[in-house]
């Protein structure tokens, strides 16, 4: 038998994985190892697999993912800091047959945008909110976020978060799970292949609930890393996340439809 060459292997029928066409060719601006890129990918894969590119409108936040629209090959709007759920509310109410999602960081969603988040969900807006919780303000250089853990260091709490002075980290996902308008609330991660699969499944469910069930807001939190803000290597950051973030923000479904 003749020896296999490279050309023999690189063929359409041998393809096991390829980049979805719903991601642009632009190189991601995220730090190497950052979870934002993986989260973008699985979200775009779900929309691609559903064949919904022409009926999707996404909303980018203010935060590291402000430029999500550079990477996602769909129609997108960029919201003022924290206001994405208000935009999503209007988009969905005006175009109820479109798939509408917001993509927001923890500072965006759980600090400056707390009111917009809670009220959009409490109204049961039929949208998907993807919440990237990295416990820090990544974009502005690693300041304390509402989700920063007790004693965790950030540039505005250089000696660690002293909860007696700075208050407690906010488990906003548990909070919003109590709202009647929240239909599906889950907490996922994307730092291992297994977690990526689970997170993608959650996004797929959220898509189906929005388009077919139409009974309220779906909220998918992704506990993620920020190796730059945490001042760690990507490997250290993932380990630190497992050891410290997951105990405070345990993974799994928080509210599932009855």
């Amino acid at each position, binding site marked *: 038998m003749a020896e296999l060459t490279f050309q023999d292997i690189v063929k359409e029928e041998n393809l096991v994985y390829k980049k979805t066409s719903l991601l642009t060719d632009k190189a991601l601006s995220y730090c190497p190892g950052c979870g934002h890129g993986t989260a973008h990918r699985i979200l775009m894969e779900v929309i691609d697999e559903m064949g919904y590119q022409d009926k999707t409108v996404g909303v980018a936040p203010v935060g590291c993912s402000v430029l999500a629209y550079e990477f996602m090959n769909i129609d997108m*709007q960029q919201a003022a800091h924290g206001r994405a759920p208000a935009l999503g*509310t209007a988009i969905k109410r005006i175009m109820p047959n479109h798939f509408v999602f917001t993509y927001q960081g923890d500072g965006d969603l759980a600090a400056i945008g707390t009111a917009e988040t809670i009220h959009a969900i409490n109204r049961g807006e039929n949208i998907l909110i993807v919440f990237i919780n990295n416990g820090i303000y990544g974009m502005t250089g690693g300041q304390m976020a509402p989700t920063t853990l007790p004693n965790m260091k950030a540039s505005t709490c250089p000696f660690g978060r002293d909860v007696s002075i700075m208050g407690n980290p906010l488990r906003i996902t548990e909070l919003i799970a109590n709202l009647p308008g929240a239909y599906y609330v889950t907490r996922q991660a994307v730092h291992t292949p297994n977690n990526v699969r689970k997170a993608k499944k959650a996004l797929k469910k959220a898509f189906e609930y929005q388009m077919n069930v139409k009974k309220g807001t779906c909220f998918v939190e992704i506990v993620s890393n920020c190796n730059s803000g945490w001042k760690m290597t990507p490997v250290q950051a993932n380990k630190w996340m497992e050891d410290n973030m997951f105990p405070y923000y345990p993974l799994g479904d928080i509210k599932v439809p009855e």
Partner: protein
Amino acid sequence: MAKELRLMKGNEAIAEAAIRAGADAYFGYPITPQSEVLEYLMGEKPYEKTGMVVLQAESEVAAINMVYGGASCGRKVMTSSSSPGISLKQEGISYMAGAELPGLILNVVRGGPGLGTIQPSQSDYNQAVKGGGHGDYKLVVLAPASVQEMYDFVEKGFELSFKYRTPTMILSDGVIGQMMEKVELSEYKPRWTHEEVVKMHPWATTGKTADRERNIITSLNLQSDVQEEHNLKLQAKYKKMEEDVMFEEVMCDDAEYLFVAFGSSARICQKAIQNAREKGIKVGLLRPITLSPFPSVIIRKYADKVKGMLSVEMNAGQMVHDIKLAVEGKTKVEYYGRMGGIIPIPSDIVKALETKLIGG
């Protein structure tokens, strides 16, 4: 067909006009003296008739960002508030200006600063005309002086805001918002269909189809040269807006003096003109209808003809500076006004004309 006439409050006229103009959505938050807009819309249930969305938002901040979201889809979307609420909307208005979005914002002005008073005022003139939020931008600003104009300026406001892809503000006040007058209603215009929106507004986020690149609505330009280019484009647009300037001239032909006033101040000036002319003072009124673009050219023209101009405002003297800029020192420009929700009376306006311009 007989004209459809109705006795209405200014705020109700705005709401009725929105439904008939084929507006797609209204987002608001209660505040005196404009809560009737949301109340009237909720009472009419346009979502059952035309499909227009009406929603009470959790705050003015949320409401203006809902306008941003809907406008980005190429729809006719509006909000209304009064002064303290308009301050909260400034973030969203600035983003809309930056992202070049249409949209209609009604400000039924009350006296400030702070919580101020619920009585009528024109003290948000500078905020409306000079930008209001952060960054170099302008709005189209329409100043109605009657309930009929409240009604008419909804359609006009949408038209201009889509023409220039710039938010339009209707700068009203508690008098015009609350008073009742006869209004001639227009025919119902159907809302645009999704297909019409896609065709008319190819920039809108209606869903990326195979025949076009994705649409992005953003006000972000990280590179300063790109941002400057964007600023220059905006400025050119604001310059072009001047072709849509609107004003009214009342008894200006033989005038030796001119009142310059907008909104309810202009209404009071009409009475002041009568009183002054009975005394033999030839005074007319120039009423800016668009405060932005400002009718500088016509004011400059009158500067060569009259002995002086009196800017009559329900504030500490804001528009007077724009009049001075327009006349370039060619004639004397003075201000008379009241603040805090107090409405000037015609006899005091005439007295101010006599002491500040004629006697002075």
